[in-house]
């Protein structure tokens, strides 16, 4: 599924890019690549229904690597049936921006981000509560 002609995935700042790099370096068992971390961040953002505007675009990864099975596209189409694909991708970036902020906060607060627990707990409960 195409996201239009954008081709790249952006984050809001150099600092955010550095956060991505650091987490991939420090937690390879959870975030083995930037693409995986972006996917998780976007999923967390969607899960929390939180978005954060991007003030400045800093390139992170190629677009094709973040949604190979089209799940994000499908969900965003459901969520934003009236928006163009490029605009939906921007919405995805906003979710990811909020998601990475949450993950970082978790790490800073608890010393780690137990993604397994997060995924398991919420994925098994058919509820947001």
């Amino acid at each position, binding site marked *: 599924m195409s996201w239009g002609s954008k081709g790249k995935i952006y984050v809001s700042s150099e600092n955010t890019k550095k956060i991505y790099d650091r987490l991939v370096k420090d937690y390879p068992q959870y975030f083995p690549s930037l693409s995986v971390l972006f996917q998780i961040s976007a*999923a*967390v953002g969607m*899960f929390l229904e939180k978005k954060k505007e991007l003030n400045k675009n800093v390139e992170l990864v190629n677009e094709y690597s973040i949604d190979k099975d089209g799940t994000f596209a*499908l*969900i965003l189409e459901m969520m934003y049936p009236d928006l163009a694909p490029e605009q939906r991708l921007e919405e995805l970036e906003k979710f990811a921006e909020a998601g990475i902020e949450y993950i970082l906060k978790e790490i800073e607060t608890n010393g780690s981000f137990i993604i397994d627990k997060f995924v398991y707990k919420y*994925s098994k409960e058919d509820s947001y509560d």
Partner: protein
Amino acid sequence: MLHKRWEIDKMWLSKIVVKNFKPYRDETSIDFGFPSTNRHITIIYGDNGFGKTSLLDAVYWGLYGKLSRDTYLMFNDDPSDNEMFVELHFYDEEYNEKIIVHRSVENKVSGFKETLEIIRNGEALELDALDLQSFIDEKILPYDISKFFFFDAEDIKSIAEKQGGEEVKESVELILGVKTIRKTIEDLNSVKKEFENERNKILKDSREYEELNDKLREISKQIDEKEKRLEKIRIEIKSLKTKRRELRAQLADASIQEVREFESRRKKLEEKITRLNSEKQKIKDEIKELSSNIHLLILRSVIKYHLEDIETKLKEISKKREELENIQNRIILLEKLIEENKCPVCSKLVLSGDVEIYQQELKELKKMYSDLPKTRRSIEDEYVRISVKYKKLKEKLDEIDKIRPEALFELREKFRQIENDIKTAEKEKAKISKRLENFGVSLVSQLETKISEITAKITQAGDEEKRLRKELDDLKKEKRGIDHKIDILAPSNSLLGGIQRKLQLLESLEEALNEYIHKLIDLRREELITEASNVFLKLTNKKEEYEKFEFSSESNYKFQIICKEGAKPDMNKISYGEKEVVALSFILGLNKYSLIKAPIITDTLFGRLSPYVQENLAILFSNAESQIILLVLKDMRENGKTEIDHLAPWLKDKIYNEYLIIRDQNKRVSHIEKVKIFGGE
């Protein structure tokens, strides 16, 4: 023949007789007499080309059969008068001896025939030509130093230009007596040669004996050398083995064992860490692969939320669709009921008042759902569209539910475990490394390397020892064989030892004489310098400036002036006049210093020198102990001057007699007449 050189003291030239010699065709004699020490100067005047230098040549040729420069002898054309001769009369004052040297050349058809005769106190010496010449050299004046006694301005110029050096060295050594000693050494060598000949004669008879002896000595020498070398190698091997034992003991030491153990453990840990890292990387790759859909697990609830939403929507649409269908059915029923006035379902007749009610209901329904089919189609489309999305989401959910994150979680656990294992191994390795650092870096390997090196050296030395032993055995065997042969030949060689001892004695003597020469030169060189310095300070016009005359170094005879403050001016840069003064100082110093009192003959010497030096030279000559013969330039015109007119005050009282060379321009011959110009006796 050996002579004591100092027998020739105070040799005076009393007479010169020449015939057919250069311009002196007729027999011409100059009688110098036997001058006293008060009047010892003879002056011979002559103009250029009249025959002054020919007289100097006559003395040279008469004594040595050579000319003082590149000229040639000329014979006259008269075949009846073809003999040329020079006769020199000397008087040895000390020994009261009269010596006449007569050298002649006859121009014969067969060629020139030169004859030398020497008459000593009226008796001709019965010697061959070479010995006669040696007699002149030794008794009168050696040829090699004659240039310091018979000289002209050109000779001074030549010495001044060369500033001493090798040529001077030879002459000086001759005067010092070195030549005599060298002659003695030569004589010693002659004697030695005789002994050697004698020895060779014996050796010739027993050459084999000598050869065997040489061989024996050589073999003994080789045996000695090899035994020394062998001993050295044995000591070396012993020392190496001791060292190796010590090193091995160190290796066997408990602490070393511990080090080895630690090193082994460290090595194992390094291998383990490498293996774990490799495993870790592998797991990381697997995690990466499995992590590509881990976000879907989070998205599952998001999808589920949307599915629920869609389900609600679908329910609502279904309900609405049902409502519209019911309305559609009611409209159809009402239309049929009004048309037939009976119920289409139960066929019961409808009352006319009720028909109006049904008509009213139908009217209201039609009004409310004016485009009911279109509305129903639209609802239907919506339902289909949402159903498709629902289906897709449902399928995605089913896919997600098939994901088994446990495998990923297990990998992550494994990854964590490996990381822990690596950390533990690294920690242990660091601990061991620290322990090893305390033991010293690679102590064991260093010890092992040293032991290997020493072992290699021991092996090498052992090989050499073995080789030397074999060589020694062979040599000893050979020596025994030679010993046996010598024992058989020995009795015939008892004379050899005696000759050998004499030869050794002569060699020692030769060595001692050579040493004596060096010491003599060192000692007497200083005396010569003193004499030359005295003359130099008398001649030079810079008495206030200069300190002395010297040779520039001990090994050469280059002239050097020393200034008062000790400075040594560059001899190449001093004026030519000064160079001549230095050369003249050396000549006269050497002359005075030497024990030879042969006459000094100078040719046209004064004209080149500065007036100041001329005066000083005149004073020197007037005070000289030797006989002085001055060949002086004179203008032959009436009242013509001489080159020494201005020196009369210093010379005139010392002049014994004066001669003038007269030239017959027509016959081109010269003769000599006694004159009185300055006033001799």
